[in-house]
């Protein structure tokens, strides 16, 4: 399931933070990440909880972030994760243009998405991180 069908870094065993405010979508994302072999941190459905996890300094290998969390934007959390060098993938029902310039290089996951999309976006984000050092 986690097969490196298109090559690239293996996702198995990675600690991936999942932030998504819709319960049903969060359940699906959790399922997909688990199927890809990741250890899901979360899923986190509220911004305050996401901030707590970032505050705790818990090690993270990557994060899949819904842009709109309960009517608020995720960018405060995203900025701190980016500072820590955590590869980011943004899930959104809006277009890619909702992302501020600084995140344009991050992975984008248009909703609704499939497991292959999550895999591809995560691997692209990891590769981008590795390239920039």
């Amino acid at each position: 399931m986690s097969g490196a069908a298109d090559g690239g870094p293996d996702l198995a065993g990675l600690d991936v933070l999942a932030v998504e405010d819709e319960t049903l979508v969060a359940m699906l994302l959790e399922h997909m990440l688990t199927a890809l072999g990741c250890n899901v941190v979360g899923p986190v459905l509220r911004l305050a909880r996401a901030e707590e996890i970032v505050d705790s300094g818990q090690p993270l290998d990557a994060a899949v972030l819904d842009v709109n969390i309960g009517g608020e934007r995720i960018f405060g959390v995203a900025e701190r994760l980016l500072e820590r060098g955590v590869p980011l993938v943004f899930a959104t029902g809006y277009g890619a243009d909702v992302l501020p310039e600084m995140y344009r290089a991050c992975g984008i996951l248009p909703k609704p998405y499939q497991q292959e999309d999550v895999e591809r976006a995560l691997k692209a984000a990891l590769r981008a991180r590795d390239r920039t050092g």
Partner: protein
Amino acid sequence: MSDLRDAALAPAAAWRDVAGPAHVDFRAVFDAIPSPYMVLDRELRYVAANPAYQGVTMRSLDELLGGKIFDLFPNEGESGWRLRQSFQRVLETGAADTIAYLPYAIPRPDERGGGLEQRYWTAVHTPLLDERGEVAFIVQNTVDVTEIARLRRATSLPFRMVHGESDLLQRAREAERAKEQLLDEADDFRRLFQQAPGMIAVLSGPEHVYTFVNDACRRFVGGRDIIGLRVREAFPETDGQALFDLLDQVYRTGSPRSGEAIRVVMPEQAPAEPLQEAFIDFSFAPIFGPDGEVTGIFAQGTDRTDGVRAQERQQLLLDELNHRVKNTLATVQSIATQTLRGQADPEAARAVFVARIVALSQAHNLLSRSNWAGAELRDLLVQELTPYGPERFRLSGPVVRVPPRAALALGMVFHELATNAAKHGALTSERGRVEVGWGLRDAEGCRWLSLSWRERDGPGVAPPGRPGFGTRLIRMSLEGELGGSTDLRFEPEGLTLAVSIPLPPGWR
């Protein structure tokens, strides 16, 4: 009173004396002035008329001199009456009198086809006083404004501002100040434009100088006086070229141009205030001079700022709608994936899937009925439990309205609980029933909804081997999404669920 013919000639000599060493021949000046002048005595008989006057009236000096003005140019109408009144005022008061605008037909000489020719005039009547200070003569300076009047009609302009005509305007203003109460055509036009609801401005010359702005236009610019300013000066912060390009094109090509929702930045009212922008629909029409050259631009504007803002809001709403649709599709995708996964019986899986979609849809219905202001907790429960018969459940609690997110979450949770009860719990037995009670309490600076779902008199239930869809949904939606707490127990009596969820601050 001297002989009329002498009087016609005498002033030249008198004036020459006054002129002194310069030796200016004022008779020659009188004749050379391009503007029409004539002199009447107290009986309103012609005593002098310069060639310009003879030209515009199509009469020779011989025809005029000695004749009474109202015999030569009879007019029994309002215009004749106004002209008489003006002469009368000069004779009585010894002060000059102005008629800004006077429609006055004159008889066309037979060699020019005869009949009457409608003309429009403006006239200033100045008294000439004798040694005793009494009015001996009236000097009339009149200008034939027929062409302007016709042009005004042709273009529906309130007036023009080009060289040589500004003195006419000056007279019009004098006339307005005068006691003359007559509504004159020009005033009507001017008032019409002045008070028109749309913005109207007249721009003059290649630099587009404001020569007229109506009330709507003046209000738009915050009451500033922009007469005499170039458009670029009036709106210096408007960097976009659209407005200036349009104006330049109209002036260069002589063709009308229009532009929709053109952005105009208002000049700073005070340095601290932020710049204000507006969006205007413009329509620019060229104004032509007598020689066919463009002399200015007639500008009309409609403030579309509110409309543009509404459009922006609509775009935001569309983006939001798009976002919600995508999220809803992702939700349905999630229900499908999790319902169908690992199900041996496709028909059973299909039924469960459809029931879940319907539950979600019903919660949506309740919310849309309230315009997404929230949903009654009781309604959410009744919707899910009614299919099993009203005798199978008991609801007790105050009227509580829950916010949209909680309504959707609780709707799905109640659906999972009810179907579980019907499949494994209290609703499988004849006697089994479901009791749901709820209440509100204030704690930790926030209002909490406490709810208990209790199944009675059903078969004994055991916890499932591993958490199923319903169990995960309860935890994730009520704890994760809504920030509440849940306590799910499988008691010998039946399943019980205690829920506590915080309501948003200020929620009632």
